[in-house]
């Protein structure tokens, strides 16, 4: 075993301190050390996107990041998406639109889609499809996933404008 290094992680707002091999992948740190098993592994080659988490709000593939590289970064996983018992609009939309079947790719899909909506709150179908090009699903044919992301964008838009009205 190579020399261990201290790894400081901040995940879903909670601080963690590990002593780990430098080769420890972020996805294994999340799953095996922090018990956050919602982030999945579906391949060895950074293709499938099941391991997608947010790095300072941007989606990345946690199977291709060393845990030590996440030092000083705000990491968000699927477990951090629902707030105060309220599902994230994407979670709600995936549920309403049957955007999942086996559920294995779902956390990664939601995290990738959240990255898109953060940058582009009102995407076209084409933009949604390309934003998900790094996430594989075998069950749904993507049809209902794309629909869910478009619906979530509408709901999110509605939420934002409602908030604006309140503050105005």
């Amino acid at each position, binding site marked *: 075993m190579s020399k261990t290094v201290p790894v400081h992680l901040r995940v879903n707002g909670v601080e963690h301190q590990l002593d780990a091999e430098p080769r420890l992948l972020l996805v294994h740190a999340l799953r095996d050390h922090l018990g956050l098993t919602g982030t999945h592994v579906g391949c*060895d080659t950074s293709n499938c996107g099941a391991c997608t988490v947010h790095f300072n709000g941007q989606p990345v593939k946690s199977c291709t990041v060393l845990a030590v590289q996440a030092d000083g970064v705000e990491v968000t996983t699927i477990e951090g998406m629902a707030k105060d018992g309220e599902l994230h609009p994407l979670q709600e939309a995936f549920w309403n639109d049957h955007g999942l079947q086996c559920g294995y790719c779902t956390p990664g899909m939601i995290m990738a889609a959240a990255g898109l909506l953060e940058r582009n709150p009102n995407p076209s179908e084409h933009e949604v499809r390309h934003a998900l090009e790094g996430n594989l699903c*075998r069950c749904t044919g*993507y049809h209902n996933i794309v629909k869910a992301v478009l619906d979530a964008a509408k709901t999110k838009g509605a939420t934002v404008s409602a908030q604006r009205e309140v503050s105005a």
Partner: protein
Amino acid sequence: MTTGGAAEQFIRVAAETTEAAPSPSIHVGQAMRRKEDPRLITGKGSYVEDINLTGQLWAAWVRSPEAHARIVSIDASAARARKGVHAVYTHEDLDIEASLPMIWVPPEIEVKTPHHPVLAKDEVNHVGDPVALVIGDDRYAVIDAVEDIVVEYDPLEVVVDPEKALEEGSPLVHEQLGTNKVCEWSLGGGDLEAGFAEADVVIERRIVNHRMAGAAIEPRGVLAEFRADRLTVWSSTQVPHFLRLFLSILLGVTEDKVRVIAPEVGGGFGSKLQVYAEEIGCAWASMKLGRPIKWIETRTEGFMVTHHGRDQIDTIRVGAKRDGTLTAWHAKIIADLGAYQMLLTPAIPPSSAFVMCGVYKTPAVQTDIVMVMTNKFGTDAIRGAGRPEATHMIEVTMDQVAHELGMDPLELRRKNFIPPFSNGHETPIGVTYDSGNYGGALDKLLEHIDPADVRREAEALRKRGVYRGIGFSTYTEICGNAPSRVIGPKGFGLQGGGWESATVRVHASGAVTLYTGTSPHGQGHETGFAQIVADRLGIDPAQVDVIHGDTATGPFGLDTYGSRSLSVGGEAAARAATKVAGKARQIVAHQLEAAPEDIELHEGRFSVRGSPDKGMTLPEVAGAAYVPDNLPEGMEPGLDEQSFYDPENFVFPFGAHACVVDVDAETGKVSVVRWVAVDDCGPAINPMLIDGQVHGGITHGIGQALYERIHYDESGQLVTGTFVDYALATAAELPSYETDRTETPSPVNSLRVKGVGEAGTIAASPAVVNAVIDALRPLGVDYINMPLTPMRVWEAIHEANGGVRA
């Protein structure tokens, strides 16, 4: 017409009308959102990899880099000396005598079956064949240890091409079998010779249906714990009950002491319908070491050693009269089984034969299958399992015939459709379809898409170098496995049955649990089955907890594959619930002093007909059943009923699909731009779930047609062993789909339903190929084999142009 022995046994089953649905449809038919989803969208699902046990060790496998070789020596000393390594096992260490299972023993037909060990003995027969099992402290340690193990191989001659494997003098995959040809099997009916004799045109095509993978996004995984003489195995499997049986047989632990749990399973598509070496090996190691053993497949392993599907070379000959009437249909199939007979390996190609009549009234149909072994991993059931190959042959050939006759492809289809039938249609090969209305599905399809519009669009696009084409597929398939007397030992030859079980348990408070013997992996049983049970008990589906995939909970079951869950398992659930409702009626009648036949379900209460305020809710009935101070004379207490349902026939869903493609003639790249699907699986239990199954099924078929391919080079090396090379389409390559349904009830079960899990896949690939050929006919292209990669399409255009670059 001669047929094989198995065909003789393939009993002509009469369609049966079962008991009528006893309750009003309130929840059945609704697009209810899924009960499974709250845990899955929040990351709270529990897949095998998410489960950890105290004292758990990890397993990893040393795998052969050679496709065919003798093992000269294995040096594991460095690995054994490595810190964190507990054991390294090779074949000598294993005391498992029996072969990994294969369960097809057709009467009067020989199936040559080599011994299939958990760890290779003396010889490896495909890349990835396991040679040693390493057990260590964690997943990192065991992978390091695998790298330390030195295996010396003496390479043997390799054969990967099934046609070469059949040639005299070919290298033999298994020397002791004396041949690579391991089985011949036929099914047919009608006078083939007369059929071809009366044909005005006979066309023949060689259609390669290439090898593909299931590619579930969750890799396989096993966690085995042997503790206090009991073996518990969590596995990412479609078949926990099968697995328990074979763990018991192979490891010598009686079945009552073995529990298999299929927790959340991240997709299967047939690839987890298997009893794998890794499942047996990890359980064995757990017994040996007394520690829980966990193994999680890497994707690279997944492509090597999770079974593949398809891989047929089909030669199809079809005769037709000038007016389009089909007269005869003869398919010769060379099926490449790979290096071992796995659970159902040789039983898959015959599934092609069962649907070789398609939706047409061709009077003579014959299928002859030759099965051959090669130095590749085993093939077995992958979504559709034999039926996609058949539909592909039939529907691609229909377009070829139409072109030959100068007929519209849809006109040719309509001319030959079996007319609508509601209670049995006997095909010449002895398979009796349950119900069908093929013209009806096509009519509905054409309400959504007008081929003339597509042709007009094509004219406009061609000026820009884009060739647009439209392709159709009108299909039926056989599913709902199955009537035990047809598929069982004396019939087709599977050493098992086709029934399914269900238990409906009303708890004392009125809460309801359904235990089903099926084992879902994404299909939504917890929701659909709850809808069925809820309607029969007058409650909300939210009140029905559906338990599956755990052999220690419900009765023995036969799991999930072959689009069987709803039409067999759902029917069993309906029957168990109907039994509960029947007992409830008796209790209510007794308590309210009415006749049982006057008790009806009305707005959630078992009430007296005509006096809706006189009645009892299910919790009240449960109270009466479990505090039995006032039950009818002789009635046992409790409210808990079981059903074992064995269907009288298969079910035969059908439909019509249309695919529109654009081909960039300069590069050969094909894009699917539109898909319209009309599927008929009987009345919908939950239309949202049906759409989901169809979407995924179509995508699997498009995947095979355009993107996906398991390819071995001549030396038996797997070339497409990662998601980089095995090209699963992403959202960016695909359009949204347009789906609709017709609803033709099945006479087979009381729900009137047919399966839909594989239908989309079975329908899809020929529609793509027909569309591409339609697009490229103006360039002189008349046939191309899958996968329609850009280079292959470009080459076809190139060749059609007489070698002139387009």
